[in-house]
C-alpha cells in the first residue's frame, strides 16, 4: 500500500507545481509586457469560446459575461478562477495520465496567460471595432449534444416532480415505457438533460434499462445501471464500432436524486435522449457503462481523511473508453491506474486531484489512446476523501461521514465505459495502434 501513497502524492505535488507555474507561461507574459492584450483582440474570443456557454443570459453561470463591461466587472474573479483552473470546470490533471480527451474543456497555458495578462494590465478594452461578432448559443433548454448529432431520436422523460425548497434529499423513481422504437436498435450517444431550473438541484439522475419477462414483470436488462448523470455531465458517446442495445419493448427505470437548495421547483422533468445508429447497424464490439466499486470501508473521522481503492481484472481484454469518478462533498481526488503483473509496470491512466461533486464529467479518451487492457492486468481505482476545513465543499468538518445516498453522506465508485474484446480483437487494435503512432501531446491537452 505504501507504494500507492507515494505515487499519488507525487502526482498531487506535480499538479500543484504546474498550477503555480501557469500564469508565467511565455505567450501571455510577453504580450502583457508589450501591453498588447486587450479584451477586443484576444480575450473576448476566449470568453466566448470557453465561458459564455454557461455565463450568458439564461445560462447556468451566476453572472453573464457577454459584454466588455460585464467581463471587466468580474475581471479579478475571472483571473483567480482561470489561473487556478477552477474554471472552466473540467478538473482533470494535466501532468499525469492520458491527456488526449474528447470534449476537453481545459484552457491551454497560453490561453490562461493571456487572460491573466489582460487582468494584470487593468483589463483594457482595446478597439471595440476589433471585437468578434457575438457568438450564437442554443437555448439552454436544448440538448447539448444536438450540436454534434442533431436532435435525439428517442426521448424518455420522467414524470413531473415537485421539488421542495428545503429538506431531506429526494429520490424520484418513476418507470417509463420507451416510446417510438419499432425494432431493437444500437445507441450512438446518450444525454441526460435536467430542466434548466432542475440543473441546480439534480444531484444525479441514473437509469436502468428494463424489459418485461415472460411473467409480465419488468427485469433489469442492462446488467446494472444503463446510464448515469451527475453534476452537469455532458453525456456518453459510444465509441465507433461499438454499440449498446436498446430493445424496442424497453422501459427506463429512473432514479433522480434531488438536493433541495432553497428554491422550490414545480413539475420538474428530467429527460433521457438517445441518438441511434442506423437501423441494421451491427457493432463489432460490445460496450457497457460499468459502476466499478472501490472497496475500502468508507468511514471518515471529523477533521480527518480517508482513502478507498478498488481492484478489477478480467478474463478477457478490454478497452477503457471513459472514466468518471463518483463521490460526494468530501471526495477530493481520484485516479485510475493499470498494473501489469507480467511486467511489473504500473501506469496512471487518469488523475483528478481537485474533484468537485458539482462537475462530474465523464472523461472520454480519444479512440487512439483509450487504454487497452490485456487479460489479467489489474485496474486500480483510488479515491481520497477530505473531511477537513481545507475542503471548500465540506459542510461540516466536525461530523463523522459514512456511506449513504444523501449528498452529505459519501459514495465510492467510478463510472467507466468499457468495450469488451476478444483476444483477436485486442490483438487487432494493438496492431492498429502500432501502425499509427500516437502524436505527442500538444500544449493544450485535447484541444
Amino acid at each position, binding site marked *: *500500500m505504501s507504494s500507492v501513497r507515494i505515487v499519488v502524492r507525487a502526482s498531487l505535488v506535480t499538479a500543484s507545481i504546474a498550477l503555480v507555474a501557469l500564469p508565467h507561461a511565455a505567450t501571455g507574459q510577453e504580450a502583457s509586457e508589450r501591453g498588447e492584450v486587450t479584451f477586443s483582440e484576444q480575450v473576448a474570443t476566449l470568453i466566448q469560446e470557453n465561458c459564455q456557454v454557461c455565463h450568458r443570459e439564461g445560462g447556468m453561470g451566476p453572472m453573464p459575461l457577454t459584454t466588455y463591461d460585464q467581463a471587466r466587472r468580474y475581471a479579478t474573479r475571472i483571473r483567480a478562477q482561470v489561473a487556478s483552473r477552477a474554471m472552466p470546470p473540467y478538473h482533470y490533471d494535466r501532468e499525469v495520465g492520458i491527456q488526449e480527451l474528447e470534449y476537453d474543456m481545459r484552457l491551454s497555458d497560453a490561453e490562461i496567460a493571456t487572460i491573466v495578462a489582460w487582468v494584470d494590465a487593468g483589463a483594457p478594452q482595446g478597439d471595440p471595432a476589433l471585437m468578434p461578432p457575438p457568438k450564437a448559443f442554443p437555448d439552454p433548454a436544448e440538448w447539448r449534444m444536438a450540436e454534434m448529432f442533431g436532435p435525439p431520436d428517442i426521448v424518455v422523460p420522467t*414524470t*413531473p*416532480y*415537485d421539488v421542495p425548497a*428545503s*429538506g*431531506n*434529499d*429526494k*429520490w*424520484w*423513481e*418513476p*418507470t*417509463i*415505457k420507451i*416510446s417510438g422504437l419499432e425494432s431493437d436498435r444500437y445507441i450512438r450517444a446518450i444525454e441526460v438533460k435536467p430542466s434548466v431550473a432542475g440543473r441546480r438541484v439534480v444531484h444525479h439522475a441514473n437509469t436502468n434499462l428494463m424489459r418485461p419477462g415472460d411473467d409480465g414483470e*419488468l427485469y433489469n436488462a442492462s446488467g446494472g445501471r444503463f446510464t448515469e448523470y451527475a453534476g452537469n455531465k455532458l453525456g456518453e458517446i459510444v465509441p465507433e464500432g461499438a454499440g449498446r442495445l436498446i430493445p424496442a419493448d424497453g*422501459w427506463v*427505470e429512473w432514479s433522480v436524486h434531488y438536493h433541495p437548495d432553497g428554491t422550490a421547483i414545480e413539475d420538474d422533468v428530467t429527460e433521457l435522449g438517445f441518438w441511434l445508429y442506423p437501423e441494421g447497424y451491427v457493432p463489432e464490439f460490445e460496450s457497457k457503462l460499468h459502476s466499478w466499486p472501490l*472497496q*475500502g*470501508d468508507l*468511514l471518515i*473521522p*471529523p477533521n480527518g481523511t480517508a*482513502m*478507498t*481503492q478498488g*481492484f478489477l*481484472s478480467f478474463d478477457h481484454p478490454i478497452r477503457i473508453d471513459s472514466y468518471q469518478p463518483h463521490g460526494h462533498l468530501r471526495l477530493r481526488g481520484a485516479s485510475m491506474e493499470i498494473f501489469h*503483473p507480467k511486467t511489473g509496470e504500473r501506469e496512471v491512466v487518469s488523475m483528478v486531484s481537485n474533484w468537485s461533486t458539482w462537475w462530474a464529467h465523464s472523461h472520454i479518451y480519444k479512440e487512439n489512446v483509450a487504454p487497452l487492457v490485456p487479460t*489479467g*492486468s*489489474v485496474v486500480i481505482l483510488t479515491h481520497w476523501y477530505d473531511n477537513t476545513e481545507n475542503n471548500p465543499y465540506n*459542510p*461540516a468538518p*466536525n*461530523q*463523522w461521514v*459514512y*456511506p*449513504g*445516498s*444523501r*449528498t*452529505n*453522506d459519501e459514495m465510492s465508485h467510478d463510472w467507466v465505459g468499457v468495450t469488451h474484446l476478444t483476444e483477436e480483437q485486442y490483438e487487432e487494435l494493438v496492431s492498429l495502434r502500432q501502425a499509427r503512432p500516437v502524436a505527442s501531446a500538444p500544449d493544450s491537452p485535447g484541444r
Partner: protein
Amino acid sequence: MSNTRRLGSKVIGTAACTLLAATPAALSGQIVPRPALEQMDWKIRTIRDSGQPVVPAFEGWYQNPDGTYDLCFGFFNLNRAESLDVPRGPDNFIEPARFDGAQPTHFTALGEGRPQREFCAFVVNVPADIGDQRVWWNLRFAGRTYRVPGHVTLRPYMIDNLVNSVGAAMEEFEVNRQFAGAEAAPLVRVVDAQGPEARGKGGNVPAQARARVGAPLRIRLQISRPPAPDAAAADDARRDEDAPSQQSVKWTKFSGPVDAPVAFSPARAQVSVPGEHSVQATFVRPGEYVLLAQVLHGSFANQCCWTNAYVRVVVDP
C-alpha cells in the same frame, strides 16, 4: 481480527503479507499454491470482527409541529461480531447534561454482509429557541473519545421525518407505479402492552412489558398506514388498497444490563402493511431493558421513512 479469515471479498495488502510470512507452510519452506495476484481481492479495512469502537453519527434534524426540533443520532459499530454495552456515564453521555439519557447503551454487532450503520436510533428533542447551540453525543473506547455535534443550523442535514416523496399525476402517463408511490413513516402500535401509537423517528413513550429469564416474550406490532394528508394522497391510498406495501421490521436491544444479549426471533422480517408483526424476545439476565423496533418504509440510506417503536421490558429472574 484473525489473519486467517477472509472478510468479504477483499483483503488488505499488509495483512496478506503478514499472513504469508506466518503460516506454518511458509515457515517449513514448502511451496504453497496460491492464487495469482490478479485473482485475489484486496481491501482496506476499518471494520473488523472485534476490538473496534462504536462511532456516533449525527443523521440530521427536523422540526416538529409544536416548533421544537428533533436531533437524530445513529451509530456505527465497527465490529462485525462484537456487540458492545456502554452504560450511560463518563463513557456514554450527551452534553449539555439536560439532554443526557436518550441514548442507547447497547450497540449490536454489524454481522456479515454490506456494512451499514444504525440510522437514527434515537432523537434528542430540543426547544424551538435552541439557536446555534450544539448537542454532543460522546462515546469513549480505550481512552479515546468519539463524538458528534447535533444542531439545527446545519441546513444540509435537514431531514424528513414522516414523508419523503410526493405524489404526481401518474395516471397521465404509462407508468409502472411500483416505484412511484410516496414513502411515509408507518403508524406502529405495540399490542398487548401499555403505550401510545408511534410514528416517525421520534418514536413513542416506551410501551411496558414484563418477562422472565429464558421464557420467550411475544411482542406484537400493529402496523398501519398513516392518514392521508390531503385529497390527492387519499386517492392514491384508495388505489393502493388492494396492494399492501411491503415494509421491513428490525429489532435490536437498545439498552439494558451489560453482557446480556437479547435473542429476537426473527430479528428482521418483512411485513405487509397494514398488518401485524410478531416477535419473540428471549432474555438471559434479569433487569430492565429497552427494545427498539424500526419499521421501515423506504430506505435508511435515504433517511426516510421509518418509525422507531420502543418497548420497555422488566425481566424477572
